[in-house]
């Protein structure tokens, strides 16, 4: 097994964002690091199928996502129970600005369906284009776009973030009309 220095550097360079992605998927740092390790092992074992010049990071994200998916299917309930453990591990930073807000954000993100969460993180944080995210998730570009939109809408609802302007008054008006106009 031999990696060229540039391939190894590219793999190591992807590790920080792979970890961040893995944590957002699993909600658990230890499991995330195990996922990253397993991803690197698979990548090295299958390095011949990597095409030089293509995006190493996207290739590794694809492997990691597939690993998580197969694991997730096996232990769905358990995975959903681990939501709070990462937020818990961050309580040792009392001076951190907006700490409570971030914990709420993490908890809300963890409640999203897995396909929406991964789409949002890939596009909104990991810096992938819609096309790259679609390739990583093995779905259509339009599917990624709609998952990202649904993820944002649901997060905003869960976090009661203002800015849903046409929802508020419209909703209220409709409620009044519905109440008044009943029968």
């Amino acid at each position, binding site marked *: *097994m*031999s*990696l060229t220095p540039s391939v*190894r550097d590219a*793999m*190591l360079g992807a*590790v*920080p*964002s792979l*970890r*961040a*992605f893995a*944590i*957002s998927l699993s909600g658990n740092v230890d499991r995330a*690091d195990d996922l*990253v*390790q397993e991803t*690197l*092992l698979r990548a*090295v074992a299958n390095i011949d199928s990597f095409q030089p010049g293509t995006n190493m990071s996207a290739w590794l994200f694809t492997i990691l996502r597939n690993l998580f998916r197969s694991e997730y299917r096996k232990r769905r309930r358990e995975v959903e129970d681990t939501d709070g453990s990462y937020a818990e591990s961050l309580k040792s930073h009392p001076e951190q600005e*907006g700490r409570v*807000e*971030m914990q709420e*954000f*993490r908890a809300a*993100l963890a409640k999203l369906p897995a396909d929406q969460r991964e789409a*949002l*993180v890939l*596009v*909104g*944080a*990991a810096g992938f284009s*819609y096309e790259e995210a679609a390739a990583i998730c093995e779905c259509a570009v339009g599917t990624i*776009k709609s998952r990202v*939109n649904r993820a*944002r*809408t649901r*997060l*905003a609802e869960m*976090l009661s*973030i*203002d*800015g*849903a*302007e*046409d*929802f508020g008054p419209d909703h209220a008006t409709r409620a009044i009309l519905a109440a008044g106009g009943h029968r």
Partner: protein
Amino acid sequence: MQTEMPTKKARGRLGRDAQAKLGQQLRVMFDEVVSEGVPDRFDVLLRRLDEPKEDGATE
């Protein structure tokens, strides 16, 4: 990230400010992990895998 189509926007309920706020929180969460860099275990792992002599011999 301006991907929304003006004509189709009416369907989405989320305003621009809300999107910006969510995006910012998402990146803060993500970058917090990224800023931790590469934990030693991964550096060690790749070096070990890369040594032909020890390939599978030690454990």
